[in-house]
């Protein structure tokens, strides 16, 4: 059953017309499915439900107002999407059923593509993580933790020794990554997909 079929009649009504070329349309087009972002009524349920709202430059509600106001660079420079922890509380509570978490992912992708972020910690973490997937087909916690922390938090490394040693001695972390058998097949798929994204 699709969610459209579950919607009350007033919500299933056709969306307001777009201003061609607007940032709102750009964000919606880059989000899978129907994000329903144009339906936001600025109620603030999202920010009120968000466990990270206190750390965000702008609450999700503010970000959505800024998207509508075509404040492209301010939106993409905001730390808001990077503090989204993907808990989906906002998404399930939104009275307009906006796919808020997926919109946050879209904003992260746009910010990375245009290098519009002030703090590189989170974007680098994502990129280091996916680097291991692209090389091995599996995630590699030990390499990720070491590389990421050496680069971004070298002074905190000593405090992480008990954690690292604990994970290793308890057999919960590997020193070497696992590689899938058909890594070339996966790489071919990902490369084709990335080509498609560029078009």
């Amino acid at each position, binding site marked *: 059953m*699709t969610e459209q079929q579950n919607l009350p009649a007033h919500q299933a009504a056709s969306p307001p017309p777009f201003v061609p070329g607007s940032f709102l349309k750009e964000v919606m087009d*880059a989000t*899978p*499915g*129907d994000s329903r972002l144009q339906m936001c009524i600025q109620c603030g349920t999202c920010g009120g439900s968000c*466990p*990270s709202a206190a*750390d965000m430059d702008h609450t999700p509600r503010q970000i959505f107002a800024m998207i509508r106001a075509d404040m492209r660079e301010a939106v993409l420079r905001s730390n808001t999407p*990077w*503090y989204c*922890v*993907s*808990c*989906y*509380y906002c998404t*399930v509570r939104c009275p307009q059923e906006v796919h808020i978490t997926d919109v946050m*992912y879209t904003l*992260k*992708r746009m910010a*990375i593509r245009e290098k519009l972020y002030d703090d590189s910690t989170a974007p680098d*973490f*994502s990129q280091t*993580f*996916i680097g291991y*997937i692209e090389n091995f*087909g*599996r*995630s*590699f*916690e*030990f390499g990720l933790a*070491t590389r990421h922390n050496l680069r971004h938090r070298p002074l*905190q*490394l000593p405090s992480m*020794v008990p*954690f690292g040693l604990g*994970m*290793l*001695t*308890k*057999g*919960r972390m*590997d*020193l*070497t*990554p696992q590689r*899938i*058998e*058909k890594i070339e*097949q*996966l790489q*071919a*798929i*990902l*490369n*084709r*997909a*990335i080509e*498609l*994204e560029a078009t």
Partner: protein
Amino acid sequence: MNKYLFYPGCSLQRTARPYMDSLLAIREMIGLELEEIEDWNCCGATEYVAVHHVAAYALVGRNLALAARQVNGTHTVMAACSACYLNLAKTDSYMRQDAHLAQQVNTALDAGGLHYTPGTVKVRHLLDIIVNDLGIEAVRAKVVRPLKGLRVAPYYGCMIARPDRDNRWDNVEHPLALDRLLKALGAEVIDFPMKTHCCGGHMTQINQASAYELIRRLIHGAAEYHADIMVTLCPMCQLNLDAYQAEMNRYFRTDYHVPIIYFTQLMGLAFGLEAEALGLGKEFVDPRPALSRIGIELPAAEPETVTVGEQPRRKKKDSGLPMPRMPGSKEADE
């Protein structure tokens, strides 16, 4: 026996190995037959989709395509990790809804000789399968050591219950499946109001102050309810609440001691299985005091005195921290 295609995911290979071990230990007792998806790859967690759009769905699409090729008597894919479950379910659901995305994913899959028709497999979580397919009664029937007197906080985390586009759960904020299951094991299940709050996810690596606050809220919540132990079904939740609890205590100058283990481990204990077979003893926060209170004595964990200098076959003296090794390198082949 109910048969399912099994997507283990990266965490169950290592950081959540006890989850895997306990699942394998109890599977026959509850009539669960698992066929692993061959040569599956990482689901991308919450990171791939933060960088790429089509590639993130193609990454998961490969797993769905491989699973579809193995469909034989069953077309249900089971994941035990919440993030894997969500990514697999979300990809199938978005490919069903968004014809353009489905076409792009299949164009990409074609480069690897694969294809996935959305809807071919059904993606479900282990908990859903145990509670709704195998049934609470089948679980209750296997209990030989009821967990009477053990106060358990059922902790679901975020991604199993939300966004739930396929309507698998009774409630997206206060689901009851795990509560019911734990009650069948004889445990005293607290009505945990934070059962689907966030564990911090990857924030431990991004901003520790934010991560520790989210961890503190959960641990504090469980302690306020006098829970002896927390039980989860998500590798990320277990890792954050267990491995970072000491750091969180240091950060806030608190002294919480709330062990957190997997629900499959507690099932195994109630079924009378041995602790080792269930991967118990690999926690950072020791669950033995809590379990011994109800008469379940686990063997003492191996001493944790890791004296780096005394390890045999050690060549470099100056490397205080173990470093990652790539396959094929000399060290890795030793």
